[in-house]
């Protein structure tokens, strides 16, 4: 089974802080994704990575950056956290050529005060 882990389940940060969310997968999947989930909006894609050091913007990249230095690890960075970034953040992975069947981590609920 694919295992996708996220560094924290709950996180509380202050406005202006730099925030790192980490995602690690153990199935050698090429593709990794970061989503945010808000009530009534479903999941929205922030960034996507298809290989080490490669990234593409999703639908809502503003205020976020990402890093993928190793195949199994994909980090989401909030350079200067703001209250409107309070949300649930979900990491997902997919094997290349797998019809976009994605496997999700448990999520990190981030609160920015």
């Amino acid at each position, binding site marked *: 089974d694919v295992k*996708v882990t996220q560094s924290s*389940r709950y996180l509380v940060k202050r406005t202006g802080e730099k925030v790192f969310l980490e995602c690690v997968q153990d199935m050698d999947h090429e*593709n990794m*994704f970061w989503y945010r989930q808000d009530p*009534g*909006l*479903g*999941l*929205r*894609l922030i960034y*996507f990575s*298809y290989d080490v050091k490669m990234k*593409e913007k*999703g639908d809502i990249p503003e205020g976020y950056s990402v890093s993928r230095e190793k195949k199994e690890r994909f980090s989401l960075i909030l350079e200067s956290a703001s209250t409107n970034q309070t949300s649930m953040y*979900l990491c*997902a992975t*997919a094997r290349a050529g797998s*019809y*976009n*069947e*994605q*496997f*999700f*981590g*448990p*999520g990190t*609920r981030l609160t920015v005060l």
Partner: protein
Amino acid sequence: AQSVTQPDIHITVSEGASLELRCNYSYGATPYLFWYVQSPGQGLQLLLKYFSGDTLVQGIKGFEAEFKRSQSSFNLRKPSVHWSDAAEYFCAAAPRSNDYKLSFGAGTTVTVRA
């Protein structure tokens, strides 16, 4: 624009009763289709998927979904709901190409009453 719509925000069903969750998609060509379930405080778990072939798809936890091209729909069903089925359900779609994007509906929350 490509989109996925789940018309029902919230559904309440009695334990043992049947459940049907609606999903409609708007794509130029038939996309790959998925249903995910999210239990409270958890990530998303894949229930079932449709790529091609038989339009009635069986999934885990006793769920099935029917693809209807004429209605651009992919509705999820379960004949007899258990209390543990209380969760949020997401329909998702991806284009039949190398495009990585998976588009999600807004979700339907299912409450199960005893």
